[in-house]
């Protein structure tokens, strides 16, 4: 367990302060909606980062886990009247199990192969949900309007949602913080930097990757439940769509993959841009936020692959050979560990 330093205490206080003060700046519902979106995508970005930023599995299929979270809690609520809080945990566990099932066979895949595989899984999931009558297929499920209570996670105002999402984000950040300082965190980064070396040091790379995928999927599903409760309507198009997966990668990559605060920063930068662009331009500006995203991500990838936080964090995450800032804070793809088959499977 890492020691609680003064810096940690200050960081926690600063986080709580910002979370408490920002919604008070304006009473406009749209402003508060943007803040909640920052929290939601911050959470999704942090979750992606545990897998992508730390172990180097760049998933472009997070929407599947988001969808599992949204559908699990909603189905439990609609069919059995179970509280979304319980549904949130169930969805998270279910997503973690699915993630383990996907990660195990895919754990030998590297770089683009894993990315394509994650997309294939997410798209298959979307097709299945669209065609599964029990969950109303493409029609989607409107959540029944119930009492304004914490137990059912339904509120008239936006403040309770704000508190919930930033609490969840806080928990995810704490988990991330813990992972980064624990033995597991060192395993993760060792695997990301060189699979062979990590493996030769006796790290069970498959096991570590599965752990990362499960934690990541759990938080993504939790965010999915929150989304369902916030919007009160889900359908395959909104909770399993591909654009969602893209946005998740975007916030993490723009802010800085492999850093704790990077995804939060990315969400805080990108979400206002996309929300206000959509609001201002309306139907005429269809897709304009994604055009901007496309340009931003190309620029970031070409000019500054460490993300925006890379500007501030000069210190390499891991000391060692080749420990320049780009190599260690984002990825160190040496020729050998990019091969599609990893250390095993040479047949």
């Amino acid at each position, binding site marked *: 367990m890492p020691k609680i330093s003064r810096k940690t205490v200050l960081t926690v206080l600063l986080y709580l302060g910002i979370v408490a003060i920002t919604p008070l700046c304006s009473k406009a519902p749209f402003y508060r909606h943007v803040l909640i979106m920052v929290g939601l995508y911050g959470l999704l970005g942090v979750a992606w980062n545990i897998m992508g930023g730390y172990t*180097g599995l*760049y998933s*472009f299929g997070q929407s599947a886990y988001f969808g599992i979270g949204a559908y699990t809690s909603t189905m439990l609520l609609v069919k059995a009247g179970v509280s979304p809080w319980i549904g949130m945990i169930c969805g998270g566990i279910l997503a973690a199990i699915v993630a383990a099932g996907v990660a195990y*066979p*895919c754990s*030998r*895949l*590297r*770089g*683009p*192969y894993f*990315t*394509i*595989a994650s*997309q*294939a*899984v997410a*798209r*298959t999931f979307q*097709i*299945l949900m*669209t*065609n599964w009558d029990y969950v109303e297929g493409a029609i989607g499920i409107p959540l029944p309007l119930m009492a304004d209570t914490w137990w059912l996670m339904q509120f008239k105002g936006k403040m309770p949602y704000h508190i919930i999402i930033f609490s969840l984000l806080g928990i995810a950040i704490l988990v991330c913080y813990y992972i980064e300082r624990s033995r597991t965190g060192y395993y993760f980064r060792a695997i990301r930097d060189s699979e062979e070396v990590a493996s030769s040091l006796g790290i069970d790379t498959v096991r570590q990757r599965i752990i990362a995928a499960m934690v990541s999927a759990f938080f993504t599903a939790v965010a999915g439940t929150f989304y369902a409760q916030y919007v009160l309507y889900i359908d395959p198009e909104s909770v399993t769509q*591909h654009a969602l997966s*893209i946005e998740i*990668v975007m916030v993490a*990559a723009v802010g800085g*993959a492999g850093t704790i605060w990077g995804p939060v920063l990315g969400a805080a930068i990108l979400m206002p841009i996309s929300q206000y662009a959509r609001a201002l331009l309306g139907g005429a*500006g*269809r*897709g*304009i936020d*994604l*055009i901007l*995203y*496309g*340009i*931003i*991500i*190309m620029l*970031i*990838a*070409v000019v500054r*692959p460490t993300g925006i936080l890379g500007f501030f964090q000069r210190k390499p995450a891991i000391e060692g050979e080749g420990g320049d800032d*780009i*190599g260690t804070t*984002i*990825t*160190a*793809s040496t020729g050998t560990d*990019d*091969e*599609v*088959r990893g250390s095993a*499977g040479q047949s």
Partner: protein
Amino acid sequence: MNVGLVQALLSGLLMGFVYSLIALGLSLIYGVMDVVNFAHGEFLMLGMFLAYWFSVLFRLDPLISIFIIIPLLFVVGVGVYKGLIKRILNGTRISQILTTFGLSVFMANMAMFLWTPNYRLAERTLTRATGDLPIFGVHVGIPEVIASLGSIIVFALAYYLIRFTRTGRAIQATSIDSEGARLVGINIDNIYAITFGLGISCVGAAGVLLATFYYIFPYVGTFFSMIAFATVALGGFGSVEGSFVAGILIGIIESLGGFFISPAVKYAIVFMTYMVVIILRPATGLFGW
């Protein structure tokens, strides 16, 4: 044999030739430059829209405008290489993935912005008016037949170019060992530019041929990208012959899946095929070298 089954096999086969051509571009770029082009499907979309606009604005049949669009897309491909891809060739994996992915997001949404999300069909094509062609009691659309014949021709031309010309040999040499190729005096940068342009031309040509009968909309590329990944994984990343056979297989798997299970889930079956192949034979696919 059941007529429906023959019909499904035949349409799968015809579509398969188009998939082969799409996959060739992706495989070529990967094999030579070691970059997975996530924007591949978007270049297909671009080819489709170009064919559409040529047919609407200049009343040119896609089968005629293809002779303009192929060189045009070659230039576009070289431009994208010089402006973007070249900068990430020595970059990290994640920057390569993000760059081509960003390009795909940019292109798809730019098309959405410029041309609205409406579904369109190319008008006034020579091929559309002529209807069905009965073969052995089953009916296949003439546009599909023409598209697959066109794909075979373009594929054959690209194959000839890669295997039997001087430039093609330089491309092959670069693919095998870029440092070695540089040592014997091949200009690697030019070869990369040509390869990228060639890959984009191939997928664009497939787009033009598809435009004669397929719906044209900004996000059409994302599905074809996934199909192309599945095809290339099956054929082996970097294998030209593998792309050809795998394209046909994927076309047949897709249409048989639609026939035996449900048309709604046929793409899910294709994606699962990708998963199975990539897990069982990760590096080589079925025919990789």
